[in-house]
């Protein structure tokens, strides 16, 4: 089992509020890890720290053995780190397909030099990526709305667009921030199936989610966070069964 992402002794606080307190965590290839814990436990903050949105006070993070501590967000993404956002962050002025087409981590059509000096190569890559986008849209059940604007489709489908966009990265490590919040019906099953497939293809997946049933069905393992600390790691079933954690979760 290979560690794709390795977090060591990560600390971060804003003023008096600690969002990461000596966090140590590994994400393994082909496995889905669930992050659970009450609101404010530091789950999303952990994603922000890993992706470089927020700089940690101390600690180190490696992706595939390479330190990413000093890399800006976009370089981390280019190394194969992809994420979705709690509040979606889709591009409203683009169609579903074009949102997804921004997913590939490196796209020669967006480099002026390639556009001018290697038009043929650009066209070839463009066709390849377009095919890939269409196949991902099909997998996520979005083929029918490919040309729609993102704000015109159902919320569950919007979540799937976020996942599809992240999938285009062909990432080594995928972070999903509350993929199920507000999602019901068809999209529910679709998201679950897609995440399963990604993990089986050898990607390390980490999911922040409040929907306990979803986490239990999907995740190989779970981590319980509270006040920026990793309190426990085990199967999701074990974590849920632990009365101490349940108390913290629903606590006073």
């Amino acid at each position, binding site marked *: 089992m290979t560690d794709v992402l390795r977090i060591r002794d990560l600390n971060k606080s804003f003023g008096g509020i600690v969002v990461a307190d000596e966090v140590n965590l590994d994400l393994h290839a082909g496995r889905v890890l669930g992050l659970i814990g009450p609101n404010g436990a530091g789950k999303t903050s952990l994603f922000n720290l890993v*992706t470089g*949105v927020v700089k940690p006070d101390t600690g180190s993070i490696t992706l595939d053995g390479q330190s990413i501590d000093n890399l*800006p*967000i*976009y*370089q981390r*993404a*280019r190394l194969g780190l*992809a*994420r979705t*956002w709690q509040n979606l*962050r*889709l*591009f*409203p*002025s*683009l*169609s579903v397909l*074009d*949102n997804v*087409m*921004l*997913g*590939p*981590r*490196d*796209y020669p*059509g*967006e480099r*002026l030099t390639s*556009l001018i000096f290697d038009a043929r190569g*650009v066209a070839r890559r*463009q066709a390849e990526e377009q095919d890939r986008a269409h196949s991902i849209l099909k997998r996520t059940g979005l083929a029918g709305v490919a*040309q*729609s*604007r993102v704000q015109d489709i159902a919320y569950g489908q919007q979540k799937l667009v976020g996942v599809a*966009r992240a999938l285009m*990265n062909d990432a080594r490590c995928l972070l999903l921030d509350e993929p199920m919040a507000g999602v019901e019906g068809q999209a529910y099953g679709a998201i679950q199936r897609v995440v399963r497939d990604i993990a089986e293809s050898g990607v390390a997946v980490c999911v922040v989610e409040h929907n306990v049933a979803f986490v239990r069905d999907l995740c190989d393992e779970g981590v319980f966070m509270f006040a920026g600390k990793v309190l426990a790691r085990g199967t999701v079933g074990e974590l849920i069964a632990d009365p101490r954690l349940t108390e913290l979760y629903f606590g006073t």
Partner: protein
Amino acid sequence: MEYIVTIIILVGLFVILAASFDLIIGYCGLISIAHPIFYAIGAYTSAMLAKEAGVPVPLAMLIGAGAALVSSILVALPSLRVSGDYLLIASIGFQLGLIELAKHFHEIGGAGGLTNIPPFLIREVGREAYAVLVVVIAALTVWFVRWMATGPYGRMMSALRDDELAFSMLGRNAIWVKVSVFGIGSAIAGLAGGLYAHYFRFIEPDQFGLLASSAVLTMVVVGGMRTTWGPVVGAIVLQLLPQAITFFGLPPSVLGPLQGIMFTGLVLVFMFMRPQGLVAASDLWRGREGGARHD
């Protein structure tokens, strides 16, 4: 005849300026109004090279564009690294500061302006040829901006405008994209500056100040941001309107402010009555390979 040719050249130059400015402020969403200063840098560089160093005019113009490119990057890079919004203040400071500086340099004509700039094409072939050159370059600029905006690069700029953080998370270097677009737009403005200098053969620091900024801004806002034809329509309308009032034979002390009032007043009217401009942009980006699309 000469009058009409001159008007055509002016319209052409403003089409180049407005289209390249639309790339910066419209498509890329970069807030800056200092576009005329890069026009000035192109004009002064080209004029000085041709006049003092005897550099062939076409080459001097290209070097002028290069100078605009380099200086725009020098302004944009430090400010954009901090935050996109710094660009505005930095560029206004740069624009007004450089104008102030130019007024004190007698080597480049000082406040009185730079005279006797070597002409180009006018004597050998004629004014009409120069007009053709300007119109061709204007058409190329419009085509180039459209080509950038409707290809994958345009899609990327749309995404960057929508959400910079999500954009970065997809492996795109937002600062680099912004600096590139700012540089390209400014280089085009620099080329237009060279074209201006070698036709009119006189330039002065004050013509590149805030009046010029509001003129170019007005052309884009009134014409319609993020559209191919908006800046063209804006440049034509707003170049011809002030020309029209010159026929009344007003003294310059009235004419200048009146033109200023017209430019700025039009922007105000449009901002509140028709914010999308004469040519309205779609709020959904469409690529040029959009034949199969349907909504």
